[in-house]
Protein backbone atom coordinates (compact mmCIF):
# COMPACT_ATOMS: atom_id res chain seq x y z
CA UNK A 1 0.00 0.00 0.00
CA UNK A 2 1.25 3.46 -0.82
CA UNK A 3 1.13 5.55 2.34
CA UNK A 4 -0.58 8.92 2.18
CA UNK A 5 2.33 11.30 2.39
CA UNK A 6 1.58 14.92 3.20
CA UNK A 7 3.17 18.21 2.21
CA UNK A 8 1.71 20.87 4.51
CA UNK A 9 1.68 24.47 3.31
CA UNK A 10 2.62 25.99 6.66
CA UNK A 11 4.17 25.17 10.01
CA UNK A 12 0.73 25.45 11.59
CA UNK A 13 -0.74 22.91 9.17
CA UNK A 14 2.21 20.60 9.87
CA UNK A 15 1.76 20.79 13.64
CA UNK A 16 -1.95 20.01 13.34
CA UNK A 17 -1.19 17.02 11.12
CA UNK A 18 1.50 15.72 13.50
CA UNK A 19 -1.00 15.92 16.33
CA UNK A 20 -3.62 13.81 14.59
CA UNK A 21 -1.57 11.02 12.96
CA UNK A 22 1.89 9.48 13.00
CA UNK A 23 4.31 10.76 10.36
CA UNK A 24 8.03 10.59 9.70
CA UNK A 25 9.19 14.15 9.14
CA UNK A 26 11.16 14.45 5.91
CA UNK A 27 13.42 17.46 5.39
CA UNK A 28 16.34 17.30 2.93
CA UNK A 29 16.19 13.53 2.87
CA UNK A 30 19.88 12.78 2.35
CA UNK A 31 19.79 10.29 5.22
CA UNK A 32 16.21 9.04 4.99
CA UNK A 33 16.16 8.27 1.25
CA UNK A 34 19.40 6.34 1.55
CA UNK A 35 18.51 4.43 4.68
CA UNK A 36 15.33 3.18 2.99
CA UNK A 37 17.17 2.25 -0.18
CA UNK A 38 16.05 -0.88 -1.97
CA UNK A 39 17.01 -2.21 -5.39
CA UNK A 40 17.80 0.21 -8.18
CA UNK A 41 14.85 2.33 -9.24
CA UNK A 42 12.46 0.88 -6.66
CA UNK A 43 10.38 3.27 -4.63
CA UNK A 44 11.43 3.65 -1.04
CA UNK A 45 9.23 1.90 1.47
CA UNK A 46 8.65 3.75 4.71
CA UNK A 47 7.02 2.36 7.84
CA UNK A 48 4.71 5.32 8.12
CA UNK A 49 3.62 8.18 5.88
CA UNK A 50 6.02 11.05 5.39
CA UNK A 51 5.46 14.71 6.16
CA UNK A 52 7.51 16.69 3.65
CA UNK A 53 8.60 20.00 5.16
CA UNK A 54 11.61 21.08 3.10
CA UNK A 55 9.70 23.86 1.33
CA UNK A 56 8.66 25.69 4.53
CA UNK A 57 10.48 29.01 4.09
CA UNK A 58 9.75 30.04 7.68
CA UNK A 59 12.15 27.34 8.90
CA UNK A 60 15.06 28.31 6.63
CA UNK A 61 16.06 31.63 8.10
CA UNK A 62 19.47 32.33 9.58
CA UNK A 63 19.33 35.36 11.88
CA UNK A 64 22.19 36.94 13.77
CA UNK A 65 21.21 38.91 16.85
CA UNK A 66 23.42 40.60 19.39
CA UNK A 67 23.52 37.53 21.61
CA UNK A 68 22.65 34.58 19.39
CA UNK A 69 22.90 32.88 16.05
CA UNK A 70 19.38 31.67 15.26
CA UNK A 71 19.55 28.91 12.67
CA UNK A 72 16.33 27.69 11.07
CA UNK A 73 16.14 23.90 11.13
CA UNK A 74 15.77 23.80 7.34
CA UNK A 75 18.83 25.93 6.60
CA UNK A 76 21.07 23.70 4.49
CA UNK A 77 24.51 22.68 5.62
CA UNK A 78 25.90 24.75 2.74
CA UNK A 79 23.89 27.77 3.96
CA UNK A 80 26.06 27.59 7.09
CA UNK A 81 29.32 26.62 5.36
CA UNK A 82 29.10 29.53 2.90
CA UNK A 83 27.64 32.22 5.20
CA UNK A 84 30.42 34.75 5.68
CA UNK A 85 28.54 36.49 8.49
CA UNK A 86 28.93 33.37 10.65
CA UNK A 87 32.18 32.62 12.50
CA UNK A 88 34.69 30.19 11.03
CA UNK A 89 34.53 27.86 14.02
CA UNK A 90 30.89 27.18 13.16
CA UNK A 91 31.31 27.08 9.38
CA UNK A 92 34.36 24.82 9.24
CA UNK A 93 32.77 21.58 10.52
CA UNK A 94 29.86 22.08 8.09
CA UNK A 95 32.28 22.84 5.25
CA UNK A 96 34.00 19.50 5.78
CA UNK A 97 30.77 17.51 5.80
CA UNK A 98 29.80 15.30 2.83
CA UNK A 99 30.14 17.08 -0.54
CA UNK A 100 28.76 20.29 -2.02
CA UNK A 101 25.91 18.45 -3.78
CA UNK A 102 24.83 16.88 -0.47
CA UNK A 103 25.38 20.00 1.63
CA UNK A 104 23.11 21.88 -0.80
CA UNK A 105 20.23 19.58 0.28
CA UNK A 106 21.06 18.30 3.75
CA UNK A 107 19.69 20.42 6.58
CA UNK A 108 21.01 21.59 9.93
CA UNK A 109 17.98 20.14 11.71
CA UNK A 110 18.21 16.85 9.83
CA UNK A 111 21.73 16.16 11.03
CA UNK A 112 20.56 16.66 14.63
CA UNK A 113 17.39 14.59 14.43
CA UNK A 114 19.15 11.80 12.52
CA UNK A 115 21.50 11.79 15.53
CA UNK A 116 24.11 9.54 13.94
CA UNK A 117 27.15 9.02 16.14
CA UNK A 118 29.18 10.35 13.20
CA UNK A 119 27.08 13.50 12.72
CA UNK A 120 29.82 16.08 12.26
CA UNK A 121 27.68 19.08 13.24
CA UNK A 122 27.00 17.68 16.70
CA UNK A 123 30.35 18.30 18.49
CA UNK A 124 30.59 21.99 17.54
CA UNK A 125 26.99 22.65 18.56
CA UNK A 126 27.55 20.82 21.84
CA UNK A 127 30.69 22.85 22.50
CA UNK A 128 28.78 26.07 21.81
CA UNK A 129 25.99 25.20 24.29
CA UNK A 130 23.45 25.28 21.48
CA UNK A 131 19.79 24.67 22.26
CA UNK A 132 17.04 23.43 19.98
CA UNK A 133 13.42 24.56 19.80
CA UNK A 134 10.84 21.80 19.44
CA UNK A 135 7.34 22.92 18.50
CA UNK A 136 3.98 21.19 18.73
CA UNK A 137 0.35 22.32 18.84
CA UNK A 138 0.74 22.47 22.62
CA UNK A 139 3.52 25.06 22.40
CA UNK A 140 7.27 24.83 22.35
CA UNK A 141 10.12 23.65 24.51
CA UNK A 142 13.84 24.12 24.37
CA UNK A 143 16.41 21.37 24.94
CA UNK A 144 20.17 21.28 25.16
CA UNK A 145 21.92 18.97 22.72
CA UNK A 146 22.68 16.67 25.60
CA UNK A 147 18.95 16.40 26.33
CA UNK A 148 17.97 16.08 22.66
CA UNK A 149 20.37 13.33 21.68
CA UNK A 150 19.58 10.29 23.77
CA UNK A 151 21.74 7.78 21.92
CA UNK A 152 22.86 6.85 18.40
CA UNK A 153 19.85 7.53 16.10
CA UNK A 154 17.65 8.28 19.14
CA UNK A 155 16.40 11.70 20.18
CA UNK A 156 14.00 13.03 22.81
CA UNK A 157 11.69 14.57 20.21
CA UNK A 158 8.05 13.52 20.53
CA UNK A 159 5.94 12.30 17.63
CA UNK A 160 3.88 15.49 17.58
CA UNK A 161 6.90 17.79 17.61
CA UNK A 162 9.12 19.30 14.95
CA UNK A 163 12.53 20.87 15.41
CA UNK A 164 12.22 24.46 14.21
CA UNK A 165 15.35 26.28 15.26
CA UNK A 166 18.85 25.92 16.66
CA UNK A 167 19.90 28.67 19.05
CA UNK A 168 23.61 29.25 19.44
CA UNK A 169 24.84 31.71 22.08
CA UNK A 170 27.37 34.18 20.66
CA UNK A 171 30.58 34.11 22.62
CA UNK A 172 33.90 35.61 21.73
CA UNK A 173 36.57 33.01 21.04
CA UNK A 174 40.09 34.06 20.21
CA UNK A 175 40.79 30.78 18.47
CA UNK A 176 39.59 27.31 17.61
CA UNK A 177 40.93 24.03 16.36
CA UNK A 178 38.91 21.52 14.33
CA UNK A 179 40.10 18.18 13.07
CA UNK A 180 38.06 15.57 11.24
CA UNK A 181 39.75 12.28 10.51
CA UNK A 182 38.41 9.89 7.88
CA UNK A 183 39.63 7.61 5.13
CA UNK A 184 39.62 10.52 2.67
CA UNK A 185 39.04 14.25 2.95
CA UNK A 186 35.65 14.70 1.28
CA UNK A 187 32.50 12.66 1.28
CA UNK A 188 33.50 10.53 4.20
CA UNK A 189 32.07 9.50 7.55
CA UNK A 190 34.42 10.45 10.36
CA UNK A 191 36.54 7.98 12.26
CA UNK A 192 36.69 10.74 14.83
CA UNK A 193 36.47 14.51 15.08
CA UNK A 194 37.67 17.00 17.66
CA UNK A 195 36.74 20.63 18.20
CA UNK A 196 38.44 22.99 20.64
CA UNK A 197 37.20 26.53 21.24
CA UNK A 198 39.04 28.95 23.47
CA UNK A 199 39.41 32.54 24.53
CA UNK A 200 42.91 33.50 25.54
CA UNK A 201 44.05 36.96 26.47
CA UNK A 202 46.82 36.93 29.01
CA UNK A 203 45.34 33.83 30.49
CA UNK A 204 43.07 31.18 29.14
CA UNK A 205 39.56 32.37 30.01
CA UNK A 206 37.28 29.95 28.21
CA UNK A 207 37.89 26.48 26.90
CA UNK A 208 35.50 23.95 25.40
CA UNK A 209 36.36 20.57 23.96
CA UNK A 210 33.99 18.19 22.17
CA UNK A 211 34.66 14.84 20.52
CA UNK A 212 32.58 13.29 17.74
CA UNK A 213 32.21 9.76 16.32
CA UNK A 214 34.06 8.03 19.15
CA UNK A 215 31.11 7.37 21.45
CA UNK A 216 27.55 6.66 20.33
CA UNK A 217 26.81 10.34 20.87
CA UNK A 218 28.98 13.46 20.94
CA UNK A 219 31.12 13.81 24.05
CA UNK A 220 31.93 16.82 26.17
CA UNK A 221 33.10 16.78 29.79
CA UNK A 222 32.04 20.13 31.23
CA UNK A 223 33.24 19.44 34.78
CA UNK A 224 36.63 18.22 33.65
CA UNK A 225 36.89 21.21 31.29
CA UNK A 226 36.35 23.59 34.21
CA UNK A 227 38.96 21.80 36.32
CA UNK A 228 41.38 21.89 33.41
CA UNK A 229 40.85 25.62 32.99
CA UNK A 230 41.48 26.19 36.70
CA UNK A 231 44.39 23.82 37.24
CA UNK A 232 45.99 23.47 33.81
CA UNK A 233 46.40 19.78 34.54
CA UNK A 234 46.25 18.21 31.09
CA UNK A 235 46.92 14.66 32.26
CA UNK A 236 43.93 14.68 34.60
CA UNK A 237 41.64 15.94 31.82
CA UNK A 238 42.86 13.31 29.35
CA UNK A 239 42.43 10.59 31.98
CA UNK A 240 38.83 11.66 32.52
CA UNK A 241 38.30 11.67 28.75
CA UNK A 242 39.79 8.19 28.33
CA UNK A 243 37.55 6.87 31.10
CA UNK A 244 34.47 8.23 29.36
CA UNK A 245 35.23 6.65 25.99
CA UNK A 246 33.16 3.64 24.99
CA UNK A 247 34.21 3.24 21.39
CA UNK A 248 33.93 0.00 19.44
CA UNK A 249 35.73 -1.56 16.50
CA UNK A 250 33.68 -1.13 13.34
CA UNK A 251 34.13 -0.92 9.57
CA UNK A 252 35.45 2.63 9.77
CA UNK A 253 38.03 2.28 12.48
CA UNK A 254 39.08 0.50 15.64
CA UNK A 255 38.53 1.43 19.24
CA UNK A 256 42.28 1.68 19.80
CA UNK A 257 42.83 4.02 16.84
CA UNK A 258 39.96 6.32 17.77
CA UNK A 259 40.93 6.61 21.41
CA UNK A 260 44.68 6.98 20.87
CA UNK A 261 44.41 9.53 18.08
CA UNK A 262 41.74 11.58 19.86
CA UNK A 263 43.86 11.82 23.02
CA UNK A 264 47.02 12.62 21.02
CA UNK A 265 45.32 15.40 19.08
CA UNK A 266 43.83 16.99 22.17
CA UNK A 267 47.05 16.67 24.17
CA UNK A 268 49.04 18.43 21.46
CA UNK A 269 46.54 21.30 21.29
CA UNK A 270 46.33 21.67 25.05
CA UNK A 271 50.08 21.67 25.46
CA UNK A 272 50.29 24.56 23.00
CA UNK A 273 47.46 26.41 24.70
CA UNK A 274 48.87 26.09 28.20
CA UNK A 275 52.47 26.78 27.27
Amino acid sequence: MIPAHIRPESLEELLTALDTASYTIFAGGTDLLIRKRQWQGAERRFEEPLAFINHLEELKEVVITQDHFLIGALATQEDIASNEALPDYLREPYRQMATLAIRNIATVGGNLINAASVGDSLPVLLALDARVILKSVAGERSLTLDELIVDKYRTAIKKNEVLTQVIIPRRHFSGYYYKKIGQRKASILSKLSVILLYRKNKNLEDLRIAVGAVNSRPLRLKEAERTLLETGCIDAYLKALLESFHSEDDKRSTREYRETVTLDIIRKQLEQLFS
Partner: protein
Amino acid sequence: MTQVTFTLNSETVSLETTLSRRLLDVLREDLGLTGTKEGCGEGECGACQVYLDGALVNSCMVPMANVMGREVVTIEGFSQTADYAKIESAYMEEGAVQCGYCIPGMVMATGALLKTNPHPTLSEIKDGLSGNICRCTGYQTIFKAVQRAATEEVDE
Protein backbone atom coordinates in the same frame (compact mmCIF):
# COMPACT_ATOMS: atom_id res chain seq x y z
CA MET B 1 -0.41 10.11 -6.69
CA THR B 2 0.09 13.85 -6.68
CA GLN B 3 0.25 16.40 -9.46
CA VAL B 4 3.77 17.84 -9.41
CA THR B 5 4.61 20.95 -11.41
CA PHE B 6 8.12 22.30 -11.83
CA THR B 7 10.40 23.94 -14.37
CA LEU B 8 12.66 21.60 -16.29
CA ASN B 9 15.30 23.01 -18.62
CA SER B 10 13.31 26.26 -18.95
CA GLU B 11 9.99 24.56 -19.67
CA THR B 12 7.09 23.94 -17.31
CA VAL B 13 6.47 20.26 -16.66
CA SER B 14 3.47 18.81 -14.86
CA LEU B 15 3.08 15.12 -14.09
CA GLU B 16 1.39 12.67 -11.77
CA THR B 17 3.75 10.92 -9.41
CA THR B 18 4.26 10.01 -5.78
CA LEU B 19 5.85 12.59 -3.52
CA SER B 20 8.56 10.16 -2.38
CA ARG B 21 9.67 9.22 -5.90
CA ARG B 22 13.21 10.30 -6.71
CA LEU B 23 13.83 13.13 -9.14
CA LEU B 24 16.39 10.82 -10.83
CA ASP B 25 13.70 8.22 -11.65
CA VAL B 26 11.24 10.82 -12.93
CA LEU B 27 13.92 12.32 -15.21
CA ARG B 28 15.08 9.01 -16.65
CA GLU B 29 11.92 6.90 -16.69
CA ASP B 30 9.01 9.31 -17.00
CA LEU B 31 10.68 12.03 -19.06
CA GLY B 32 13.29 10.04 -20.99
CA LEU B 33 16.15 12.33 -20.02
CA THR B 34 18.80 9.65 -19.73
CA GLY B 35 21.80 11.98 -19.70
CA THR B 36 21.51 11.97 -15.93
CA LYS B 37 22.97 8.64 -14.76
CA GLU B 38 22.41 6.47 -11.72
CA GLY B 39 25.66 5.24 -10.22
CA CYS B 40 25.69 4.44 -6.54
CA GLY B 41 22.21 5.67 -5.70
CA GLU B 42 23.39 6.99 -2.36
CA GLY B 43 25.01 10.34 -2.98
CA GLU B 44 28.61 9.17 -3.24
CA CYS B 45 29.35 9.16 -6.97
CA GLY B 46 27.74 12.30 -8.41
CA ALA B 47 26.71 10.67 -11.72
CA CYS B 48 23.12 11.88 -11.16
CA GLN B 49 23.95 15.52 -10.47
CA VAL B 50 21.60 18.25 -11.69
CA TYR B 51 20.95 21.86 -10.71
CA LEU B 52 18.00 22.55 -8.41
CA ASP B 53 17.28 26.29 -8.24
CA GLY B 54 20.83 26.73 -9.55
CA ALA B 55 22.48 24.61 -6.85
CA LEU B 56 24.31 21.37 -7.59
CA VAL B 57 22.44 18.39 -6.09
CA ASN B 58 22.39 14.60 -6.40
CA SER B 59 19.04 13.78 -8.02
CA CYS B 60 19.07 10.34 -6.34
CA MET B 61 18.61 12.12 -3.01
CA VAL B 62 15.77 14.44 -3.97
CA PRO B 63 12.14 13.31 -3.67
CA MET B 64 9.57 14.93 -5.97
CA ALA B 65 7.98 16.64 -2.95
CA ASN B 66 11.10 18.78 -2.78
CA VAL B 67 11.00 19.61 -6.51
CA MET B 68 7.48 21.10 -6.61
CA GLY B 69 7.55 24.68 -7.89
CA ARG B 70 11.30 24.69 -8.33
CA GLU B 71 13.67 24.85 -11.29
CA VAL B 72 15.62 21.83 -12.47
CA VAL B 73 18.39 21.90 -15.07
CA THR B 74 19.77 18.59 -16.32
CA ILE B 75 22.79 17.94 -18.53
CA GLU B 76 20.41 18.15 -21.52
CA GLY B 77 19.47 21.70 -20.57
CA PHE B 78 22.97 22.72 -19.55
CA SER B 79 24.31 21.47 -22.91
CA GLN B 80 22.48 24.36 -24.63
CA THR B 81 24.61 26.99 -22.87
CA ALA B 82 27.88 28.74 -23.71
CA ASP B 83 29.32 27.66 -20.35
CA TYR B 84 28.75 24.06 -21.38
CA ALA B 85 30.38 24.53 -24.79
CA LYS B 86 33.57 25.71 -23.14
CA ILE B 87 33.60 22.76 -20.73
CA GLU B 88 32.81 20.25 -23.49
CA SER B 89 35.66 21.35 -25.73
CA ALA B 90 38.08 21.41 -22.79
CA TYR B 91 37.13 17.83 -21.83
CA MET B 92 37.63 16.72 -25.45
CA GLU B 93 40.94 18.55 -25.83
CA GLU B 94 42.32 16.97 -22.67
CA GLY B 95 41.01 13.47 -23.43
CA ALA B 96 39.16 13.58 -20.12
CA VAL B 97 36.42 11.17 -21.19
CA GLN B 98 36.90 7.41 -21.24
CA CYS B 99 33.81 5.29 -20.61
CA GLY B 100 31.86 8.48 -20.11
CA TYR B 101 29.41 7.32 -17.45
CA CYS B 102 30.56 9.85 -14.85
CA ILE B 103 30.92 12.70 -17.32
CA PRO B 104 27.42 14.26 -17.17
CA GLY B 105 27.91 14.60 -13.40
CA MET B 106 31.50 15.80 -13.79
CA VAL B 107 30.38 18.43 -16.28
CA MET B 108 27.55 19.63 -14.00
CA ALA B 109 29.99 19.84 -11.06
CA THR B 110 32.51 21.66 -13.28
CA GLY B 111 29.82 24.13 -14.32
CA ALA B 112 28.82 24.74 -10.69
CA LEU B 113 32.45 25.27 -9.69
CA LEU B 114 33.30 27.68 -12.50
CA LYS B 115 30.14 29.68 -11.87
CA THR B 116 31.16 30.51 -8.30
CA ASN B 117 34.90 30.41 -8.87
CA PRO B 118 35.87 31.20 -12.50
CA HIS B 119 39.61 30.67 -11.88
CA PRO B 120 40.00 27.82 -9.40
CA THR B 121 43.36 26.51 -8.20
CA LEU B 122 44.09 22.79 -8.57
CA SER B 123 43.18 22.30 -4.94
CA GLU B 124 39.86 24.11 -5.43
CA ILE B 125 39.16 21.97 -8.50
CA LYS B 126 39.75 18.81 -6.47
CA ASP B 127 37.44 20.18 -3.80
CA GLY B 128 34.79 21.12 -6.37
CA LEU B 129 34.82 17.63 -7.92
CA SER B 130 35.15 15.75 -4.63
CA GLY B 131 31.55 14.53 -4.88
CA ASN B 132 32.16 12.84 -8.24
CA ILE B 133 33.72 9.43 -8.74
CA CYS B 134 35.43 8.35 -11.98
CA ARG B 135 36.74 4.80 -12.29
CA CYS B 136 38.56 5.24 -15.62
CA THR B 137 40.65 8.36 -15.88
CA GLY B 138 42.45 8.62 -12.58
CA TYR B 139 41.10 12.20 -12.55
CA GLN B 140 44.25 13.94 -13.83
CA THR B 141 42.90 14.61 -17.33
CA ILE B 142 39.64 15.82 -15.79
CA PHE B 143 41.48 18.29 -13.55
CA LYS B 144 43.38 19.53 -16.62
CA ALA B 145 40.12 19.90 -18.53
CA VAL B 146 38.64 22.05 -15.79
CA GLN B 147 41.78 24.19 -15.76
CA ARG B 148 41.55 24.54 -19.54
CA ALA B 149 37.86 25.43 -19.38
CA ALA B 150 38.69 28.10 -16.80
CA THR B 151 41.39 29.74 -18.88
CA GLU B 152 40.09 29.50 -22.44
CA GLU B 153 37.81 31.99 -24.07
CA VAL B 154 34.97 30.58 -26.14
CA ASP B 155 34.52 31.21 -29.84
CA GLU B 156 30.89 32.03 -30.38
